[in-house]
């Protein structure tokens, strides 16, 4: 286990280092279009080949990983915090608060947020820079993506509220705040952590789909989600292994993060 965790930490550090610093290396320009060598496989000049307009795939992968790695966990964090506020706290409080929270969560799960996203795009100036557009996109994802974890946290918090050890603590005169902070919160952390790790790749993919609405990471800035979207055409048009590079990086990254930071596994 320790070896696995160490390897995972090394992998995560390596990917982070390369994605943060890689774009400083000469030759890793994610914007430049080499129009004489477009849609090509790996070569000496372009180690992972080039995309459909001749941009270096490796440079775009490095830069896209940076964009997604910085923003997707932040969005996942926002959604987890909101899920906690809307789900866990009312679940523990019970009564009317809990019923209202359930109604809000049900609505959050089923309303057509697609249109809200369109409104967000309409309110943004057309000349918003790609970086700001990316930050706004992931923020919106975080603000809208709390429904599922909130429901689970609510159920969990409710069960804890009705559990014997909480009843015992309450009977012993433990304050509500201490009860929640010291006894309930640690029991909610595994669910919150699980949601966080699920949300990161989900938001990376969701960002790519948001480009249909004018949100998402705008050209020429790359993102992991955008590179993954190319997988769809890659399957039918060009079965080139380099198409899967973004997927490989994402899977390795997400798996490594889970192994590195998850404390408890099934024993």
């Amino acid at each position, binding site marked *: 286990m320790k070896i696995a965790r160490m390897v995972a930490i090394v992998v995560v550090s390596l990917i982070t280092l390369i994605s943060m610093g890689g774009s400083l290396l000469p030759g890793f320009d994610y914007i430049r279009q080499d*129009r004489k060598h477009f849609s090509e496989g790996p070569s000496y000049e372009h180690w992972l080949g080039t995309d*459909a*307009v001749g941009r270096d795939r490796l440079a775009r992968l490095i830069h896209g990983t940076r964009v997604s790695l910085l923003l997707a966990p932040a969005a996942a964090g926002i959604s987890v915090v909101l899920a906690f506020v809307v789900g866990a706290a009312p679940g523990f409080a019970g009564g009317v608060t809990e019923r209202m929270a359930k109604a809000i969560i049900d609505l959050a799960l089923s309303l057509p947020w697609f249109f809200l996203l369109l409104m967000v795009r309409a309110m943004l100036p057309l000349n918003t820079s790609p970086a700001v557009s990316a930050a706004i996109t992931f923020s919106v994802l975080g603000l809208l993506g709390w429904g599922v974890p909130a429901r689970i946290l609510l159920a969990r918090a409710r069960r804890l509220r009705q559990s014997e050890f909480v009843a015992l603590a309450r009977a012993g005169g433990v304050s509500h705040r201490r009860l929640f902070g010291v006894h309930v919160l640690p029991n909610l952390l595994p669910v919150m952590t699980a949601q966080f790790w699920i949300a990161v790749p989900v938001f990376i993919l969701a960002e790519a789909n948001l480009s249909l609405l*004018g949100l998402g990471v705008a*050209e020429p800035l790359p993102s992991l989600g955008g590179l993954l979207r190319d997988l769809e055409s890659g399957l*039918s*048009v060009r079965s080139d292994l380099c198409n899967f590079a973004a997927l490989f990086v994402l899977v390795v990254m997400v798996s490594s993060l889970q192994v590195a930071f998850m404390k408890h596994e099934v024993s």
Partner: protein
Amino acid sequence: MRRLMLPLCLLLLALATPGMCLDELRFYLHSDPKTFNPGLVADPDSETIRYLTGGVLVRLNRQTQQLEPELATAWKVSKDGKTITFQLRQGVRFSDGTPFGAQDVQFTMTVLMDPMLHSPTGDAFRSGQGKISAAILTPDRISLTFPAPVAGLEKLFDQVAIMSASSPKKEMAVLGPFYVAEYKPGAYVALHRNPNYWKHDDAGRALPYLDAVKLEIQSNRDIEMLKFSRNEIHLINAMDADYFDRLARLAPDKVRDAGPSLDSEMMWFNQASEASVASYKLEWFRSRNFRQAVSLSINRDDLCKVVYGGHAIPARGPVSPANKYWFNSQLPQARFDQEDALRLLQEDGFRLVDGKLVDRGGHPVQFSIITNAGNRSRERMVSMIQADLRAIGMQVNVVTLDFPSLIQRISKAFNYEAAMLGLTNVELDPNEQMNVWLSSSDQHQWNPRQSAPATSWEAEIDRLMLVQASAMDDKTRKRAFDRVQEIVADELPFIYLVNQNALVGVSPALQGVVPVAARPQTYWDIEHIRFSVERANNAN
């Protein structure tokens, strides 16, 4: 018992054998047809149904681009261009057996021209105020009179599918080679051959050769490509260049490049007075030099090579060279010359500061281009244009939007700076684009609904378009429209980028498919398409 064995076995064999094998052509529609009423057809999928089922008085041969007799054996347009008289074919029946005659033509035109119908086909005939009158001269001769001359009048009847005045099946009784036998929403439209179709081939055999056409509904182009490569469908119209090249590598006998299509890609700047654009930017967009500079900075050869894999040509103007008659071959080729572009910009007071272009007021040249999301070719093109314009110091932001949001910005709110779209399903006759060129029109995209032309060149275009609309001889019309094309190439209200080729997929099992530039590119001669016997056995 033994005597019964043989007949029993034969009976069982007959029952076990699947029904008589149909020659069924299969290809995809990309969404549900919105209507089966031929008068209301406005989307490509309904148009497909109309083409395959509708009988027309005259048919534009998509290959020769010449008009041919169909349900009308002869026609004559009066000298003033207001009246057209048709001699109708005799002995023709609708698919349900109802006889065809002049009353059906009268009924069809009455329905089409009903102002409450808002039919795009009907609107194409509207040349002036007033009603159309139809005079039935004999049961097989009818005369239609319009309130004002209609340019290219006879060609418009290629879009008019004749409906029955008396059939209880209404618009489902048809005169075309097929009729709609079954429609499962979201799944498919099944067409069966019209048993009463009037056409025969030279050997006297009844047309069409095919027994049925199955149009499955599938919006995903990747899946369409997969199914075609597995021979589950037989045709693909308007294929993307990416798919074309992949298929060409795997199965070169399945794909055809029919040369430049009638389609084009273009971009334009918002010049509307009600535009929600900074005034200094509006000044840029209204400057001919600025538009010329942008055009000169775009490498169209690269667009054709990279985005379309060489299956496109740089566009010269609003008409594709595939439109043999109306294309102005004297138009100059679009140039790529970024130095010349900078020189033109300098004339307007622009200058480069640290590699960034600024105007005389010191504003950095930055603008956005909006286009519709989900079109891979367009997204790649706009990315390349962004790079080309960066080379002359312009900063371009690319925003892809869903179609309704895009339409809202370009048609209603005018809160955009530049837009990029394409023209598809283009008709050959320029009169059908009248609303694009008239400055007072809603579809005069760069500056619509002008109470008076904002510039002298738009006033000139207005005049020329009205000349070609009212002239009866094609030479006068051609001269006028050639001049429109010259003005457009000079002033660049639209910056035309490429004319993409007609790339199609045709199963080797089919015979009689001749891909052409005009739509429908593959099945325009549906009556003569058939399966070759030995290929059909192998392919299926």
